[in-house]
């Protein structure tokens, strides 16, 4: 008789840093420190849970995830919360699948959660996508034994203009409070009362049931991230004022999308119904936004639904009024006008910072092919040659610092960059790095802003304009920081207002070269990095090719079949100046607000003076006011495309709302070029991207041309940047969001405030004045801070000045 040889017993080797345990009879290897609930999930066993969230610290509050655990052959006397217990070698776990005790414990907790939960699912926003509803179906009893009185509360309680709280629905899992305290650093909501009366609330809701707008510290409730609490609420307790009662989840069509606001490029999910976007949710992208969104990204989408959306082409008639017309008519007028202007003094292109890569490429190509010029610039903001040199030599085509690198960085220095206002998701990563890994976050700025506080950061304070000197002298006045920047993985982040400080990019470049710290440029607008890559600059062709580099130019000329002017074109300021003095005849302008330009007054004059202006716009603006032809273009949700986020990561997205009739810029420009007898091959975003991708890679970069810092003029210096939620045109039509904007206040030092006296301060230049309530901050003497575009504080438009400008301040008198 032959016998099968005995199977040799093979022990699965346990890798270093891992443990072996058994879950429901199945052996599993898990990394040390992993929570049981995640290990089980990897095996395909979903243990029900409410308080557990992978991005929040464990709480163990809801007790829904109880399992039976045996350690060293000895069963633990009580069922254990699998969301708080970490794996251990030799552990034997029985979930609800194999343990009657665990199953009963889970059913019991579910029943208890439901005794006070209303049965209002049919009218609750969460109904249909509710973890409580779903898990109650899976792990609960069909009928409740509870026959007594449910706990009720007056409802809803607005905890901000955009978040409403229905306390009787709340299961007190504390996800919202933990998110606010841990992730956002805005502990404006907390638990109040105790026992069955425990509830979520703000400082003012404890006794007062009306609108709460203050936190315990007396700070107004303004979290830029409060919308996340709505999304992670496992029941319908927190709802969005914008979305409440507007639709049912099962009526919505969901489409993955990318945020169009800042340069983080967050993954989003856009939910629409009958051709209208109803809401946006955070997508899950661990490499970029994890599962979070800022409130601007979440709530600011109503601009595309504005009543005044331009949906048909407009042409200015003989009486000077814009009249709706056909596309063919508009294209003919635009092409003729542009051709004439081109052949006269020429046409400049202001592309704006909010274009997709594909659209920006179309502008860059349109300028060269149809207008035969390098007069193109995407920078609809203060800019400088130094910045241009920095972008073309250090930024374009690079893929260096990432969100992940920020999280692991031992030290991050933010220069002229206010993370919470300018790139909120970067802020969250910096806070996470500081909170979890004790990263040192240093801010070269003017005062201890909430970004500084909430990243557990350190402020290197200096007057606006003195930043280059501060960086240059780092080795002597902050040797510890200087040494920290030399550590592996240290990062310097530089923001858009660095362009307003002469010598700052040079100082950053020098510091990076000396310490080895990596530099990342974080622009404020979503389209800037893509436009840089696409060559929407006077000195740059697509792929980082310098206009002045003959070989580089030749590659593009071959691909495009045209010859490109060999000298650099005009930048934004020069284009505006040339339009104003008549040395340029016409302009093609994308989404640009003249009030954002360095000199708004000159910009308005230039547009008025220009012989021919074509505006590609969504809504009436300071440009359409003077445009000869207005061509409507599609908002983000009505087109496909991609953004390059600040990391240099391409963030493609598909069309969400199809067949609205709106065309992307690249299509409009393609048709316009055809009308001018030129071919762009950018009929669709895909075609435009294909055309761009066919260009060969180009690696050579010009050297950075350093610029010396300015001598410091005497006088009071203005510090300013844009707050996240402000007067920006993409936030139009969203009052709930606007209600959480930080108020427009001027900030001065305590000494200056005392000298000024009174509650308000007037900041003025020879252009105009802004009067705002004054608040004291730890600003250096001789510095005043204004929000750049909040409420009445429209710094560019009113003062014609920006960060670092010399202004005068005086007491503002009564308001």
């Amino acid at each position, binding site marked *: 008789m032959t016998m099968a040889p005995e199977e040799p017993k093979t022990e699965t080797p346990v890798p270093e840093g891992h443990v072996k345990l058994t879950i429901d009879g199945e052996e599993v290897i898990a990394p040390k420190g992993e929570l049981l609930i995640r290990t089980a999930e990897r095996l395909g066993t979903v243990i029900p849970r409410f308080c557990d969230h992978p991005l929040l610290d464990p709480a163990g*509050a*809801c*007790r829904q995830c109880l399992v039976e655990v045996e350690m060293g052959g000895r069963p633990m006397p009580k069922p254990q919360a699998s969301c708080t217990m970490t794996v251990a070698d030799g552990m034997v776990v029985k979930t609800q699948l194999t343990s009657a005790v665990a199953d009963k414990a889970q059913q019991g907790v579910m029943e208890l959660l439901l005794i006070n939960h209303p049965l209002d699912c049919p009218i609750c926003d969460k109904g249909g996508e509710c973890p409580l509803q779903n898990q109650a179906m899976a792990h609960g009893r069909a009928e409740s034994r509870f026959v007594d009185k449910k706990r009720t509360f007056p409802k809803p309680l607005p905890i901000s203009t955009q978040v409403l709280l229905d306390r009787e629905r709340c299961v007190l899992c504390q996800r919202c409070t933990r998110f606010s305290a841990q992730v956002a650093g805005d502990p404006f909501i907390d638990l109040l009362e105790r026992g069955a009366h425990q509830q979520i609330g703000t400082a003012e809701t404890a006794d007062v049931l009306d609108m709460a707008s203050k936190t315990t510290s007396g700070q107004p409730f303004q979290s830029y991230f409060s919308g996340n609490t709505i999304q992670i609420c496992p029941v319908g307790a927190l709802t969005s004022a914008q979305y409440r009662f507007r639709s049912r989840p099962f009526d919505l069509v969901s489409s993955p999308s990318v945020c169009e606001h800042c340069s983080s490029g967050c993954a989003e999910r856009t939910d629409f119904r009958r051709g209208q976007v109803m809401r946006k949710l955070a997508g899950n992208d661990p490499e970029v936004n994890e599962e979070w969104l800022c409130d601007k990204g979440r709530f600011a989408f109503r601009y595309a639904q504005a009543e005044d959306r331009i949906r048909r082409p407009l042409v200015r008639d003989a009486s000077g009024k814009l009249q709706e017309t056909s596309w063919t008519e508009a294209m003919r007028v635009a092409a003729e006008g542009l051709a004439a202007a081109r052949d006269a003094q020429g046409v400049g292109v202001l592309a704006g910072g909010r274009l997709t890569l594909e659209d920006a490429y179309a502008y860059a190509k349109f300028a060269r092919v149809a207008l035969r010029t390098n007069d193109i610039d995407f920078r609809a903001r203060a800019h400088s040659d130094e910045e241009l040199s920095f972008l073309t030599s250090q930024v374009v085509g690079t893929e260096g610092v990432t969100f992940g690198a920020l999280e692991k960085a031992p030290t991050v220095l933010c220069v002229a960059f206010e993370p919470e206002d300018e790139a909120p998701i970067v802020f969250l990563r910096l806070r996470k790095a500081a909170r979890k890994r004790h990263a040192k976050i240093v801010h070269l700025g003017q005062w201890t802003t909430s970004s500084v506080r909430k990243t557990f950061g350190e402020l290197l304070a200096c007057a606006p304009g003195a930043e280059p000197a501060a960086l240059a002298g780092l080795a002597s006045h902050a040797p510890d920081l200087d040494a920290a920047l030399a550590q592996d993985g240290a990062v310097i982040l530089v923001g858009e207002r660095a362009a307003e400080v002469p010598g700052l990019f040079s100082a950053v470049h020098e510091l990076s070269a000396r310490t080895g710290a990596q530099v990342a440029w974080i622009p404020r607008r979503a389209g800037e990095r893509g436009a840089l890559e696409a060559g929407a600059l006077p000195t740059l062709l697509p792929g980082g090719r310098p206009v002045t580099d003959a070989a580089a130019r030749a590659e593009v000329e071959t691909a495009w079949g045209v010859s490109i002017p060999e000298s650099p074109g005009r930048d934004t300021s020069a284009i505006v100046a040339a339009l104003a003095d008549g040395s340029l005849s016409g302009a093609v302008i994308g989404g640009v607000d003249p009030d954002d330009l360095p000199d708004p007054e000159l910009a308005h004059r230039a547009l008025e003076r220009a012989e021919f202006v074509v505006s590609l716009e969504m809504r009436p603006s300071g440009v359409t006011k003077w445009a000869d032809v207005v061509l409507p273009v599609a908002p983000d949700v009505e087109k496909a495309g991609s953004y390059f986020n600040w990391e240099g990561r391409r963030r493609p997205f598909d069309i969400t709302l199809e067949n609205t009739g709106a065309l992307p810029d690249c299509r409009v420009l393609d048709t316009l070029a055809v009308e001018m007898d030129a071919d762009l091959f950018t009929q669709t975003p895909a075609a435009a991207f294909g055309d761009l991708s066919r260009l060969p890679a180009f690696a050579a970069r010009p050297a950075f041309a350093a610029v010396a810092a300015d001598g410091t003029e005497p006088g009071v210096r203005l510090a300013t940047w844009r707050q996240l939620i402000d007067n920006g045109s993409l936030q139009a039509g969203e009052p709930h969001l606007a209600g959480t904007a930080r108020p427009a206040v001027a900030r001065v030092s305590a000494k200056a405030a005392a000298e000024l006296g009174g509650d308000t301060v007037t900041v003025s230049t020879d252009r105009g004045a802004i009067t705002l309530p004054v608040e004291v901050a730890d600003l250096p003497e001789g510095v005043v801070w204004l929000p750049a575009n909040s409420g009445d504080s429209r710094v560019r438009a009113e003062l014609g000045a920006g960060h670092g400008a010399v202004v005068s301040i005086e007491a503002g008198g009564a308001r």
Partner: protein
Amino acid sequence: MTDPLTPVLTKRWLSPNSWRLATYEALEGYTAIRKALAGTPEQLVQVVKDAGLRGRGGAGFPAGVKWSFMPPNEDKPHYLVINADEGEPGTCKDIPLMMADPHSLIEGCIIASYAMRSHRCFIYVRGEALHCIRRLNAAVREAYGAGYLGENILGSGFDLDITVHAGAGAYICGEETALLDSLEGRRGQPRLKPPFPAAAGLYAAPTTVNNVETIASAPFIVNAGSDWFRKMGREKSPGPKIYSISGHVEQPGQYEAPLGTTLRQLLELCGGMKDKVPLKFWTPGGSSTPMFTAEHLDIPLDFEGAAEAGSMLGTTAVQVFNETVSVPWAVMKWTQFYEHESCGKCTPCREGTYWLAQILERMVDGHGTAEDIDTLLDVCDNVLGRSFCALGDGAVSPIQSGIKYFRDEFLALCESNKRELVGAQA
């Protein structure tokens, strides 16, 4: 038979002005710290271990072992926190001790702090005990004045500061981690463990939380030695214990007797049942410990004895009820207490106590049904061992034990509803 009373902690209580430093010093006070400070911290921990002193707050964890969990280095400040948030229904031993003999606690704090290399001790006193807080503060001031606290205590080079902190009256703050959160100025709710307080307690630094009675025992152990301590009580539960006896007895009060004393002996000490009305039920250690009945008169009241009989020693708060008391009513009152004091953090305790209280209220009101008794027991089963901390476990003890021993009384309350139903069917 030897005297059943062993006045150790209570021995000064009846002296005139027992709370004053002068009285304390005249009665051997502050002699133990001289011995203690002359030795090493390790020696002190060993003496307390040898004595077998077990925590007097209810759980009975060996105090010396707990002390030895404190890290030997001083990378971070070490804290000793005294849990004087005496709030368990029926318990009245710590507050009388601090009223009558506050210096024994302070001396104990000095010894324990020295043993654990702590230079800062907090006494967290229940906020309602205002008189006690004042007396304790006065005693701390006296001790500072006499050089027993502050820098370089008695020339030993050891520094210690004591802060008396008033709680705000939450039962949950007797749970040691909730106490620490409350002491830090946060909302008093229990913390996730690990980390345990010895690793990251108060202000995330190594911390030991001990009950008042435990710490007040330390000077006596240091003075008289562990063998002396072990002469009292039983093998695994040595030492004297303050039994606080309340309810239907002739002379309620604090009786200090060796661990393992039975209720029968205690009743003799306090003059028997009031007006000779027979005993019906009693708690061995406060309302969180399952109740006993007249059957359990001879159970030795120490940690093992109470546990073997299906209850717990708890805080030795013996509440005695005679035959005039309705068990469902008493259980309802206790349940209302837990509903009121549940901190709300976890579902089973928060929702469970809310539900249980409503059912019991309805029953006592005459609207219960027999099914309600099953529901009560099943909800108790879903709370016991499922809640975040032991408050939930304590909350169901009276109900489970009440129904276990007196189911008929609960059923009787439901009787009228049963009849109504029968009548409806006819």
